[in-house]
């Protein structure tokens, strides 16, 4: 018996040693110590300022960033090809590092070498024990070739959208204005915004249809966005993709460089609403946070504003549209209000965040988690409830159009943030809690005084996540710069979000743009073309006649050798 057992062991052992390692073990690509060490050098040079030296997402920049930098110790990664709750593959991590995440401060890092990226991935994996646990790994899901987009499928997708209650967060028309949108939090208890489906260039995982399909099939770990791999069939998911795709016009924002006001003959009847602007060229302009003057807005909610303009002989009208997750029509707002400078330090942010408990990475987040008091933390920078709620009644949404107060002399413009002492600006202002527009004269961001609102008209409406505000004014008015046809005028815009506690300097704004006011009669090219052609022809005939007269008897110049 003893002998027989030995025989077996001796016979079989060499073959056992030759067998490949179990498949699961092969998945544990954790790198060598040297690779992790090399990754640490790269990480501390390029990543730790946001993600923290401990990988906990509490680097220097973290306190003002929305979305916050990834906390690698949580083991939760949003953009993956693996099923909900599972760890990402190395290629998933590589893709995010290489391409970045649009409209976040996570830019792409194309300059890093392949080896650096691989090493940094190995180092990132050391921040959580999860990567050593085979249970947290899973095979990537299959993403089939996208079937061609079709309108009928998008229509069916709309039904899926309502049935799955996507509108609760993303809003009825996808403008991120769902009822629970302002109070969503991630697993760490930090507030988080739903994606604005009309702006797919902001999708963190990419704007392509297969990217959207992937998000539906994998969910975004650690966020309220669940996976629909189990609840929707493949066809339904593609229908939903087609519906989401139909909500946005393009993969890129196509920001405009200028605004053109269209000349029309009719009265500018404001009761027509947006129809008044039919045929006018829309200009989508990027908004950025006012972080230049004290009272800074590091993460404004509005990222772009669509501008249209029309005019007749007497008046000019502007249509301003921007997405806002909630209409704030109570309280007040004004460009002259004092906005507190942000005081939050990294340490405060860190102590706040560390009080939230860890949660299981496999916890399903099908139901959006809602925290009633999270709003203030997210939208205000200093985290104080007082700031965001604005005392008793809060702050209302507001919008402004800014012109130079007088036609600029040469190239010199007023300072783009509410002018300067020598070069004031004319601010048309709509506090959306009030029915009438206001006017302000800006001589610098801390020197904004009320002006005379006579002659300025305004209407405003909010529908399914979009504000639509129309301003109208006489083109020639005693106390303002005249707006003449065929001319360019500097113009800038500002948006205040009441929900974020925006007021005064704390807002989203644009730089100076130029608006072209079409002349009443436009000159076609035909007439000047014909004139120039006839003139040229005439000169030719005269020249030919002169030369022929001089050389009646053929070429009379004797040939020469040059």
């Amino acid at each position, binding site marked *: 018996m003893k002998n027989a057992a030995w025989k077996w062991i001796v016979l079989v052992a060499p073959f056992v040693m030759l067998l490949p390692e179990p498949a699961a073990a092969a998945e544990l690509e954790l790198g060598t110590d040297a690779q992790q060490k090399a990754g640490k050098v790269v990480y501390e040079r*390029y990543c730790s300022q946001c993600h923290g030296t401990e990988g906990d997402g509490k680097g220097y920049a973290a306190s003002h960033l929305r979305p916050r930098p990834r906390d690698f110790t949580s083991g939760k990664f949003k953009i993956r090809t693996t099923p909900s709750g599972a760890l990402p593959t190395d290629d998933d991590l590589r893709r995010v590092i290489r391409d970045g995440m649009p409209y976040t401060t996570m830019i792409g890092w194309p300059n890093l070498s392949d080896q650096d990226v691989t090493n940094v991935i190995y180092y990132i994996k050391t921040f959580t024990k999860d990567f050593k646990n085979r249970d947290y790994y899973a095979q990537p899901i299959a993403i089939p070739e996208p079937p061609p987009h079709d309108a009928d499928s998008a229509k069916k997708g709309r039904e899926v959208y309502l049935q799955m209650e996507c509108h609760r967060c993303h809003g009825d028309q996808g403008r991120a204005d769902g009822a629970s949108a302002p109070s969503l939090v991630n697993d760490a208890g930090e507030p988080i915004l739903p994606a604005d489906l009309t702006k797919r260039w902001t999708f963190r995982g990419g704007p392509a249809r297969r990217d959207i399909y992937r998000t539906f099939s994998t969910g975004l770990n650690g966020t309220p966005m669940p996976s629909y791999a189990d609840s929707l069939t493949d066809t339904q998911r593609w229908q939903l993709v087609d519906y989401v795709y139909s909500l946005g016009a393009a993969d890129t924002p196509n920001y405009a460089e200028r605004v053109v006001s269209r000349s029309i003959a009719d009265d500018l009847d404001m009761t027509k609403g947006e129809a008044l602007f039919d045929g006018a060229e829309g200009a989508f302009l990027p908004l950025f*946070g006012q972080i230049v003057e004290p009272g800074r807005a590091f993460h404004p909610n509005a990222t772009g504003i669509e501008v249209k303009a029309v005019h007749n002989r007497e008046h000019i009208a502007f249509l301003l549209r921007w997405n806002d997750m909630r209409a704030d029509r109570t309280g007040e707002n004004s460009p002259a209000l004092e906005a507190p400078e942000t005081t939050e330090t990294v340490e405060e942010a860190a102590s706040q965040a560390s009080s939230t408990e860890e949660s299981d990475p496999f916890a399903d987040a099908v139901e959006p988690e809602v925290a009633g008091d999270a709003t203030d933390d997210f939208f205000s920078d200093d985290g104080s409830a007082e700031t965001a709620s604005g005392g008793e009644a809060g702050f209302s949404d507001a919008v402004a159009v800014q012109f130079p107060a007088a036609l600029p002399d040469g190239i010199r413009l007023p300072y783009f943030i509410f002018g300067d002492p020598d070069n004031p600006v004319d601010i048309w202002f709509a506090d959306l809690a009030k029915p009438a527009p206001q006017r302000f004269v800006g001589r610098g961001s801390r020197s904004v005084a009320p002006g005379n609102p006579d002659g300025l008209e305004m209407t405003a409406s909010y529908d399914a996540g979009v504000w639509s505000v129309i301003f109208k004014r006489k083109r020639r008015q005693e106390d303002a710069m005249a707006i003449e046809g065929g001319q360019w005028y500097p113009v800038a815009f500002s948006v205040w979000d009441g929900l974020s506690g925006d007021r005064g300097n704390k807002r989203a704004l644009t730089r100076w743009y130029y608006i072209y006011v079409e002349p009443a009669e436009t000159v076609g090219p035909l007439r000047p073309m014909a004139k120039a052609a006839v003139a040229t022809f005439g000169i030719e005939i005269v020249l030919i006649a002169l030369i022929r007269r001089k050389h009646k008897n053929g070429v009379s110049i004797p040939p020469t050798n040059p």
Partner: protein
Amino acid sequence: MNLLVVLPILVALGALRLLKAGLLAWMIALWMAIYLTLRYGFAVPIPASVITLYMGITTMALATYVLSSRERFASCSRPLIALVVERRLRTLLIVVVLGLPLLVAARIYTNMSQPLQPPSFARTVHPAPPSEPITVRGQTFDLNAVENPFRNLEKSDPSQFRVHVENGRRVYYQNCVYCHGDNVQGDGLFAHGVNPIPTNFRDSGTIAMLQEGFLFWRIAKGGPGMPGEGGPWESAMPAWENFLTVDEMWDVILFLYDHTGQRPREVEEHAK
């Protein structure tokens, strides 16, 4: 240099030489060769106004060459006169006479159908700093002679130097990152909204060409502190003296050079 353009031009000129072309053909060919080289021959495009200037000089030079001798003028004008006078060239003459007005009309059409271009302003990217000393947070700095007070730590106390660089890194990522970007190359979250675009510090044409005193001035006084030729009304660069201490500004300058591996331009000896 764009060799795909320049080489064919040289080949064409060589062919003219082999064909023993006349002076008129040479003048036209040279004019076109210079124009095409200026327009398409360089990897970095030359501004249209500069091309116009160069072509004006070229035209004058060629005209002077032709007009400076009776023989040259004659050999240039003879083919032209022949075209007008000689019966056998009548078809060609008709083509030219009708073709020129069409070209003029086409030119006007392309000019008029250009997309509307808003007025632009050619700003000076690195305007000259003021010659008078500047005051930042109560301290006075002579920009011609000022040096980074922490630069000497690089040799005298490397560990203290690292502390300052690290503090500069903190300052950068809490304040500058929104426009100048994570990788300090001017592509931050808000960069697409501002004009002029934020400086790319990795570009060898930026901080490596400048003294630390210049950076200190630009950081402390920002867009509003620029002289007129820099376009102070449109720059979104904050005047950081409103937010940062003097030491923080010097630290962030240390960080920018350290992180990009560049060296500041030295202060000239005579200015010290």
